[in-house]
């Protein structure tokens, strides 16, 4: 890692890490009477550890100019491993909180083991830890291949990757201590938010600088999706997190918005986090890795452009469907509903485009679990976007909102779409990224596939059942007009589904652990021996064609 840096970059790295350590020290001193101080110590430790690592490696010989004839993949390699580690953490905590809902006594009266503190560790862990690292790692890979240009330097990709993970650690440790600004998916407090803005600006700059040096005249559509993800997430993050801290020595801050404006800003952010973090970025992944793995160009490039602009124009206006039947003006709710329904067009254009690309390569989907992960992701993407458009309709929402149906919908998207496309893409690049001939065990990929699929199906069906039952119980009236069921009645009815949900989540977690094991074993496999030149043996250059090919 440090041997990759030029001398000037090592100096820059030490300056940046030294400054980070000083900021941590200032936070630790200024926030000594506050939880901010603990985060100060964490930042100081991160800065110091990095500084010492660079110091120790600063005398290594400089990388030669031959590095410029290779893509810079070291950050992608580390990013892939971080992706899997966060998957295990995020999904592990997810399984635990699912079990807590079925057996609520398991908090053991420890504050940081309570549901309210652990749940954001799960959501941030999977969305930002697992999803975010996967997006950063794959975006660096796709960007270089589709532009035929190396990343602009060796230090900014590390700044983005490691800085982003520092944000994730600050976020998760803050939740456990009880630090939150109480905005869903935007829980981290003001100092973590400012740090993420810095990291994100550098991320976008890497994209711009690499594109500026590209060889390909046309910017491949996957990059559009990745850039929409980076740019829009920056806008959403900055606006939704506008807040004034109580003091520079306090972790607590107050939002600039209040009342229904606050709610609207939050759900404009929240739904577009789904749109641009969990959709646009992963569509970028799909538009590169799926055609690549299938060995067929995307079915319709024009359709991918139409879907791109459709998604970017329309998602922006859909957020208000989270606020049906609230103080939000009725016309704004209707606007969100209408845009959500129309969104089905670009969403299905992408899902259809992916499946039509596979049309003619179904035998590969049958034989190759990696491509099957991607095919299944496209199917789940189609299912989830249809369900989402449907649930945004006000009358449907009156049944589904505040129930487990929403949770089922989110997980159909997160497990079925986001995680499947991520695992498929990850398996497809791990061998080449770590310079191995193949993945350690194709069988374990197969095991992972079936664990992931069965886990997702069990999870989603459990939540659909419990959600609809909840919704119906809450709106059943007696003859005299009172409610037939108390809230606790509906809770008791949920118990078996909560157990089923925890079991589905456990299967999915086991799949992620299988992936981590398989990737670690792939890295530990001996590197392939360099091809014997002119050995005089009559070995076919390519494996014989399989039946059906």
């Amino acid at each position, binding site marked *: 890692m440090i041997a990759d840096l030029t001398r000037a970059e090592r100096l820059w790295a030490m300056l940046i890490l030294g400054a980070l350590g000083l900021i941590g020290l200032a936070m630790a001193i200024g926030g000594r009477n506050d939880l901010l101080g603990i985060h100060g110590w964490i930042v100081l430790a991160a800065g110091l550890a990095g500084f010492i690592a660079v110091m120790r490696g600063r005398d290594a010989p400089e990388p030669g100019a031959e590095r*410029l004839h290779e893509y810079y993949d070291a950050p992608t390699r580390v990013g892939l491993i971080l992706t899997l580690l966060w998957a295990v953490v995020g999904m592990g905590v997810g399984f635990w909180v699912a079990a807590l809902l079925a057996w609520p006594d398991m908090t053991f009266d420890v504050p940081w083991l309570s549901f309210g503190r652990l749940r954001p560790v799960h959501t941030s862990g999977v969305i930002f830890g697992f999803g975010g690292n996967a997006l950063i790692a794959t975006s660096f890979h796709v960007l270089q291949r589709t532009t035929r240009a190396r990343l602009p330097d060796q230090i900014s990709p590390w700044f983005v990757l490691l800085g982003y993970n520092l944000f994730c650690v600050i976020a998760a440790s803050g939740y456990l201590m009880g630090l939150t600004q109480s905005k869903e998916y935007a829980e981290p407090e003001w100092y973590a938010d400012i740090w993420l803005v810095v990291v994100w600006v550098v991320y976008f700059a890497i994209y711009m600088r690499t594109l500026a040096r590209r060889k390909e005249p046309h910017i491949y559509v996957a990059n559009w999706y990745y850039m929409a993800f980076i740019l829009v997430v920056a806008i959403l993050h900055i606006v939704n997190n506008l807040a004034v801290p109580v003091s520079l020595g306090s972790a607590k801050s107050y939002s600039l918005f209040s009342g229904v404006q606050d709610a609207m800003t939050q759900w404009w952010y929240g739904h577009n986090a789904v749109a641009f973090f969990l959709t646009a970025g992963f569509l970028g992944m799909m538009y590169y890795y799926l055609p690549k793995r299938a060995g067929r160009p*995307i079915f319709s*490039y024009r359709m991918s452009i139409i879907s791109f602009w459709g998604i970017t124009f329309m998602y922006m206006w859909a957020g208000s469907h989270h606020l049906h039947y609230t103080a939000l003006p009725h016309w704004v709710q209707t606007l969100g509903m209408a845009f959500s329904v129309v969104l089905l067009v670009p969403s299905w254009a992408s899902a259809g485009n992916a499946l039509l690309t596979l049309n003619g390569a179904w035998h590969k989907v049958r034989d190759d679990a990696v491509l099957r992960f991607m095919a299944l992701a496209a199917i789940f993407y189609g299912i989830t976007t249809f369900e989402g458009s449907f649930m945004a309709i006000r009358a449907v929402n009156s049944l589904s909102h505040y129930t487990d149906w929403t949770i089922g919908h989110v997980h159909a998207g997160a497990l079925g779409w986001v995680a499947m496309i991520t695992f498929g893409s990850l398996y497809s690049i791990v061998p080449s990224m770590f310079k191995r001939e193949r993945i350690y065990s194709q069988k374990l990929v197969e095991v992972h596939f079936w664990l992931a699929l069965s886990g997702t199906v069990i999870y989603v069906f459990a939540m659909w059942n419990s959600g609809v039952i909840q919704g119906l119980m809450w709106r059943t009236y007696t003859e005299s007009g009172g409610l037939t069921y108390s809230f606790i009645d509906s809770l008791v009815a949920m118990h078996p589904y909560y157990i089923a949900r925890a079991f589905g989540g456990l299967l999915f977690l086991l799949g992620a652990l299988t992936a981590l094991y398989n990737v670690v074993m792939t890295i530990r496999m001996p590197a392939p021996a360099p091809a014997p030149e002119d050995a005089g043996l009559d070995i076919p250059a390519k494996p014989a064609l399989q039946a059906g090919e």
Partner: protein
Amino acid sequence: MPFDHDTVVGFSKSFGLFYLVALSVIALVWTYWPSNKKGFDEAAKLPVLEEEDRPWRG
């Protein structure tokens, strides 16, 4: 023009409609413009080209 609720709503409901329609028309025309087809067809082949896994310049 006062910067009150009704003005903002009026602006959103009028300008908001027109600029979205205009952007959609521009995107559609550009996508289906006949001379753009060749570039798109070539771009679509990018992920499946079996070329050397190296950047184009040192």
